[in-house]
């Protein structure tokens, strides 16, 4: 319990720190938002008016407090760039709310692929005594880990989109219009995200299992007359999964935080694509909230993994 409270306090402190940094970083950078919105031709009066409208005339601390207060109340501010209609800018919350399901769907599909393929593969690899299979897997996973996700996206597009014509490259269907059509399209970006992580996870699990197999308690289990199968699944796997849980947690955080590049390759309108376009158009209210969001996701996932770890590993929880 004490541990939980402590963890949550650290969690909040980190979020606060990141929010300060995210906010202040964009206040000190060269390049004025006002000029970039209005163009260089604008009159000083108009610039002044916009500055006041955006609240940029106040000192940074005041602006941070106001901004943070708004964020805590659920008001994420308005985008500088996207407009909702003629006389209103798009609220950031709505903007992100629209893109978030895309990223979450991609993350979920990728995680399912990883969990379903990598864990059995890793176990099978560790138990296999076939030398050729071992060499093949070793080379295959090494290579898979070396492929950058954007190139993998290009390869998947080429193979499944252009050669096999299983999907139309660039033909993203919105989840609002056709959910299953969207899922069908999303399988391919999910494959691109998943392949390197599958290779990493399978390798990690296999190495973890091989390491555990050398432990003394495994010898004890054999001395009781347990079969190789029983030792592998009942004793080794359980212990070998411990570090893998942390590893998978890191991958979840990475994927949920936005497979930025892959979204770009498949032109998915997700968080990652929004972030890139906001950065290049200097749409700071959006960037700030996105950074906060990603930090939040990462920290929460890590926290959950930590809690899970304590539940499954008696050595920690019973201390």
């Amino acid at each position, binding site marked *: 319990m004490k541990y939980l409270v402590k963890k949550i306090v650290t969690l909040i402190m980190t979020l606060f720190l990141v929010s300060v940094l995210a906010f202040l970083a964009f206040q000190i*950078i060269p*390049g004025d938002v006002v000029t970039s919105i209005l163009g260089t031709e604008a009159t000083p009066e108009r610039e002044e008016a916009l500055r006041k409208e955006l609240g940029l005339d106040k000192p940074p601390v005041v602006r941070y407090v106001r901004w943070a207060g708004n964020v805590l109340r659920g008001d994420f501010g308005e985008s500088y760039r996207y407009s909702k209609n003629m006389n209103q800018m798009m609220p950031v919350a709505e903007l992100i709310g629209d893109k978030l399901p895309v990223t979450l769907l991609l993350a979920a599909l990728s995680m399912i692929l990883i969990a379903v393929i990598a864990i059995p593969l890793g176990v099978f690899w560790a138990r296999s005594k076939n030398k050729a299979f071992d060499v093949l897997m070793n080379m295959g996973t090494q290579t898979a880990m070396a492929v950058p996700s954007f*190139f993998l996206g290009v390869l998947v597009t080429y193979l499944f989109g*252009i050669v096999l014509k299983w999907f139309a490259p660039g033909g993203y269907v919105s989840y609002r219009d056709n959910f299953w059509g969207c899922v069908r399209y999303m399988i391919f970006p999910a494959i691109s995200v998943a392949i390197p992580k599958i290779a990493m996870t399978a390798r990690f699990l296999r190495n973890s299992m091989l390491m555990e197999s050398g432990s003394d308690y495994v010898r004890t289990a054999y001395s009781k007359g347990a079969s190789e199968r029983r030792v592998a699944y009942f004793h080794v796997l359980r212990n070998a999964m411990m570090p893998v849980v942390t590893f998978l947690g890191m991958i979840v955080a990475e994927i949920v935080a936005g497979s930025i590049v892959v979204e770009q390759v498949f032109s998915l309108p997700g968080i990652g694509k929004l972030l890139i376009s906001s*950065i290049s158009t200097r749409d700071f209210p959006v960037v700030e909230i996105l950074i906060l969001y990603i930090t939040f996701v*990462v920290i929460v996932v890590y926290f959950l993994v930590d809690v899970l770890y304590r539940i499954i590993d008696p050595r920690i929880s019973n201390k």
Partner: protein
Amino acid sequence: MKKVAGWFKKQNKYFLVGLAMTGLAVVLGILSFFWTPYGPTTMSAAERFNAPSFRHVFGTDNFGRDIFSRVMQGIGTTVIVSSLIVVISAGAGILIGAITGYFGGILDEAIMRVTDAVNAFPSILLALVVISILGSGKQNVIFSLGIVFTPSYVRIVRSEFIRLRDADFVCRARLMGVKKLRILFVHILPNIFSVFWVSVTIGFNNAILAESGMSYLGIGVQPPDASLGKMLSDAQGYLGRAPWYALAPGLTIVWIVLGFSLLSEGIRRKEASKK
């Protein structure tokens, strides 16, 4: 000569293959500063979208430029950029990691909080944030990725120093009255190199992947500097017509990254077999 042959015999397969792969890439990259088969920017309307042939090993692109020459230049940029990133981040990592790890205390706590926070992020995302503050361009890519990767080295160096801080031989050095700086850099530092080289080779990989990823997204290295990531993003529009245009820079990245992976695996195995 005999010495060289003997040295080669002692290395394992991973190390040798990795060395050959990265070595070839580095040689091509450096060569590109002096010579390329064709002018990398020479366009030719007559030679648009030529498939790979003896004339153009990797084929030509939408402007009729020789892709091999452009890939060579891209490797050159990648090699320089990633080396500088590794030098900056590893150098800073050793210094900060050694001091915080050995002395501990409040400074160590504070730096660990920061590195934990930074390590939690996908590296490319953090670099994007830094870039969005500094603006794009080669120097800023080097600088931002240099900062972004520092914490990972700090972490490794720090944990090694913490492990060795209370090792018996360090304890004895203290009893002999050896000065602190000498303990840090003469007694302890040589002991972490085996772990450190592994992380340096992995660091090269991360740097290459991040740099090319950012260039692919259009916020990394900017023209006229050649870049493999940018080439790939240009080629994506012609995927149906000229797949080799995308394959050439893509496979080149895979080649280099795989080379460094094998190198690091080789070093790891060599160290493991020593123990």
